């Protein structure tokens, strides 16, 4: 069975979904990802869906689930690289992915995760520290 690679960048995990997902694969991914978050003590998860031309309710639910699971494990989830057509379809379907943060591309996604983690860690102190 195909497996979706999970790459580690600093304290972030990058999952790039390049093929059409089906149930077993999604379950395997959730399994792998949660394990990896725990073992690598990651603080952020980035899911790149720029290769997906079709995102249906199944994938939408999977993304929501992953976000919820990561949140429990103290990691923020950011979905990056959604195509305009996919965004429009999701909105028309009424699947707004409310539990998930989004960013335009991997670059922005990393910056967003950084920002959220900093905020969670008491950014005020850090910012002052950085300015000095």
């Amino acid at each position, binding site marked *: 069975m195909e497996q979706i690679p999970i790459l580690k960048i600093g304290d972030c995990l990058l999952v790039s979904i390049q093929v059409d997902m089906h149930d077993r694969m999604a379950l395997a991914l959730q399994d792998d990802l949660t394990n990896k978050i725990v073992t690598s003590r990651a603080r952020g998860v980035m899911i790149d869906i720029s290769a997906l031309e079709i995102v249906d309710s199944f994938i939408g639910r999977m993304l929501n689930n992953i976000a919820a699971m990561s949140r429990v494990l103290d990691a923020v989830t950011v979905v990056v690289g*959604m195509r*305009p057509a996919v965004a*429009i379809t*999701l909105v028309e379907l009424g699947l*707004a992915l409310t539990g998930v943060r*989004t960013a335009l591309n991997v670059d922005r996604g990393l910056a967003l995760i950084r920002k959220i983690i900093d905020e969670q860690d008491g950014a005020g102190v850090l910012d002052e520290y950085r300015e000095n």
Partner: protein
Amino acid sequence: MARSKALLQGVLDKNADPLVARWVELQRKALKSGQLEASELESQSKKFVKALQSAVVSGDIESINTPAWAEVRDLLEEVTRARALQGFSPSETATFVFALKEPLFEYLRRECGKDADKLADEIMTASTLLDQIGLYTTEMYQKSREQIIQRQQEEMMELSTPVVQLWRGILALPLIGTLDSARTQIVMENLLQEIVKTEAEIAIIDITGVPTVDTLVAQHLLKTVEAARLMGADCLISGIRPQIAQTLVHLGVELNVVSKATMADALSLSFRRIGKVVIDRKTKKESGISESAAD
């Protein structure tokens, strides 16, 4: 019928030139001066009589929907489209065909002499034929007008949904006119494409030019905001007029989006969000960079 076809054919063959001359004269009388170049009218008429001649020779004169009439139909289409574009009225366009009746009947009468029955038959046949052609012209006219209207609608749609870049990372979407689902679709597509192109983080949707906002329009707005969020851009809504704010509350519509009264307010908030500062030059000299944002 074969006989009458022969007669019509004979008339067209023998008298083509004087027929065209008289026809053109009648048309020019019917049209306002300066509407159409005389030479153009004449060449159109000549071409048409020629096409009519060959169609009568090779085809059935009962119906003009047969392949033999293709040339005549094409010619009519061309003439009608040109006239529709130039702003001719339907009757002015149909005159092109109906003005042919008088000279044609005149020549048929000469041909038949004193045989009233035969003449009546001939005129009946020719009249039916010309009526068909005339109706076809009207139909074509209608079609051309519809095409023009459709094209204008599309152009208006394109024109009315611009996406402007206000700053690096800030887009503005000034909406003018009513928002329906077709327009929302286009607005959304334009906005999302622009977000990808400019890597924008913030999009300001300005609804100063939207006359009314009801539940449906609000829903459309929210869809656009949601789609932009999925692309990683935040939306601000600006330009909500007092009247509209009241209506929204009365309708119980909740826009769960950051909204600002004016585009300027929204822009100043956007600057703050992307960490930019607008400073008065004087202030800068006096106190250095200390003012926070452009408000």
